[in-house]
């Protein structure tokens, strides 16, 4: 009787939590769009018109849709990277650095070697995975062995990567000529494009496959179970015989490798070489937003990446067609993050509302 009661309450709680997981991102997105609209009104633009342009820029034509997907590919990877870190309770804020080292590593393999495609392309991808993985794994190691906060180390490693890649591409690995970039990669290392005259490449399918793989790892393997258990309660996991330190290093390696794939696919599918970076593109930071919108679930991450892919695609069009500065998108993005992060306030308000209605405060 008691058991039944508990499992019933648990089921009810889980159902409610799932509802919150769905509702909060939706409220956050709506709030973001409203705030964006307010900024548009301030400058005398028409929000409705701007949002129609935003929508049409991705869904109004095949070309637009393809370009939107091009934006989405790296965000799926960096979103998964942040989400995977969250699952073990680590905050990988170093996606931008992992992006850069993998971007260069993949491009390097792409132009240094001449191999058949079925070896060359996987080789370049694996090189990128290792580069990003090591970059993230170091932070995991420092956290596991010395307890150094991974946020600090990953921020530091972002800038080390920025200047290191800047040095290598501008110096030892620079192609001849005026362009601050590496030589072009060979065709055998390129991620093929599959629609004539469009830039969308096989990276999108790789990203979707990796999202499925991450789902499988997290929910269908022992390692995934250990990762989630550690994220829930590291002390209990340790006590239960889970090697928390090893899992942290491995999880940060995977997280770094995922963010790295964003960089590799950018080099192999889009730019066909590595350019000298003059700052961060910001895929790592947007990945945080993607993971939050997606509530850390791979399916949610893919949807979140699509959302931000649409927004960034629309930003340029809104600027050129209705004169809304493209920075409005960044403001919308920040508002969305803030709202989702403040989930507690929704719960708090809901409780207050129930209390005022005279109901009993919910124990959960």
């Amino acid at each position, binding site marked *: 009787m008691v058991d039944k009661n508990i499992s019933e309450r648990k089921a009810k709680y889980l159902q409610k939590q799932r509802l919150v997981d769905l509702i909060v991102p939706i409220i956050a997105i709506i709030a973001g769009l409203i705030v964006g609209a307010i900024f548009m009104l301030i400058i005398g633009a028409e929000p409705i018109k701007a949002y129609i342009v935003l929508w049409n820029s991705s869904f109004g034509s095949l070309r637009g849709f393809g370009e939107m997907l091009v934006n989405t590919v790296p965000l799926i990877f960096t979103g998964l990277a942040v989400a995977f870190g969250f699952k073990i309770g680590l905050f990988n804020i170093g996606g931008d650095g992992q992006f850069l080292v993998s971007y260069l590593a993949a491009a390097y393999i792409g132009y240094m070697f001449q191999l058949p495609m079925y070896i060359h392309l996987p080789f370049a991808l694996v090189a990128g995975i290792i580069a990003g993985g090591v970059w993230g794994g170091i932070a995991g190691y420092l956290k596991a062995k010395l307890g150094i906060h991974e946020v600090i180390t990953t921020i530091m490693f972002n800038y080390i990567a920025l200047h290191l890649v800047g040095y290598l591409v501008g110096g030892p690995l620079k192609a001849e000529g005026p362009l601050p970039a590496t030589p072009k990669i060979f065709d055998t290392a390129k991620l093929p494009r599959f629609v004539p005259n469009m830039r969308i490449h096989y990276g999108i399918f790789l990203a979707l496959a990796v999202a499925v793989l991450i789902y499988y790892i997290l929910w269908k393997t022992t390692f995934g179970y250990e990762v989630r258990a550690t994220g829930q309660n590291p002390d209990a996991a340790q006590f239960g015989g889970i090697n928390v330190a090893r899992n942290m290093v491995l999880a940060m390696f995977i997280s770094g490798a995922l963010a790295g794939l964003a960089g590799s696919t950018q080099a192999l599918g889009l730019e066909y070489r590595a350019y000298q970076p003059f700052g961060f593109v910001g895929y790592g930071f947007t990945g945080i937003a993607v993971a939050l919108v997606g509530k850390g679930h791979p399916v949610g991450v893919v949807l979140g990446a699509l959302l931000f892919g649409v927004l960034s695609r629309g930003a340029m069009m809104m600027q050129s067609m209705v004169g809304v500065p493209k920075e409005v998108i960044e403001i919308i993005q920040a508002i969305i993050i803030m709202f989702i992060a*403040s989930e507690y306030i929704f719960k708090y308000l809901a409780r207050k509302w129930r209390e005022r209605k005279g109901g009993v405060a919910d124990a959960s």
Partner: protein
Amino acid sequence: MLANLTALLSTTLRMATPLILAALGGMFSERSGVINIALEGIMLIGAFTAMAGSYFFSPWIGVLAAVIVGMIIAAAHALVSISFRADQIVSGTAINIFAAGITGFLLRLIFGDAGQSPSVQDVGTWKIPFIKDIPVIGGVFGEQIPFVYIALIMVGVSYWILFKTPFGLRIRSVGEHPAAADSVGINVIGMRYIAVIMSGFFAGLAGASLSVGLLDLFVKNMSSGRGFIALAAMIFGRWTPQGAMLAALLFGFADALQMLAQTIGLTFVPRQFLLMAPYILTILALTGVIGRSTPPAADGDPYIKEEV
């Protein structure tokens, strides 16, 4: 040679100034238990505000406005991360993204240019009598932008506040052991609010030192990672004002070296190595290779009062 040395040291001091100010801000926030990676964004907004204030009114009104706006943004970080119990890193990230967006938006709106603002009046320099006539020292300390002196004074003031006043003791206690502080009647939430808002004061001032001090205009994303270097300086300086200052000076020195590399004949070291030095040094400091650096015990943890 002597001229080079003077140039190098005075550039070091100038480049260290925004780092010192922002690091002091980060220190107050983290000493109270709240990580503030929004320093970067608050600096950027501060830099824009100071420039706009100078454009429409006067440079010092710009500085004042930057400080006030900095405190308001920091208050938002406090509200979201202390009261709404949002993840402090997430809140900071959102503010950084917001800062890049809002400053770019306003730059386009007010000045119609996406890259930079027009040149505005800066705060000029202060000359210190007598000192400016001493060789080398005069060249370094004798005539600098006001922010240099303000930053150095603020280091002393911060040390005094943090270690010599009951207020400072309270800040440190809520960052080390909030439950214990609460049990002796210290308002944990209130102290954290004050400390985070103080960090906005310093980060806003640091931003102003960029746009109406070091330069006389606003450039898109001009904080360019200085907020994060300041965070590094604070860690490297072990969460103390004097330590943060010394670390900031070291980082400023690396920056000055790469800026003056041509002049002083330091071309054999790639400038990127000098640029990444602060980050590598900070990692080494954290790992204990050069003296272990340990954060306040409750840094990053939201405080949830136990129900009685």
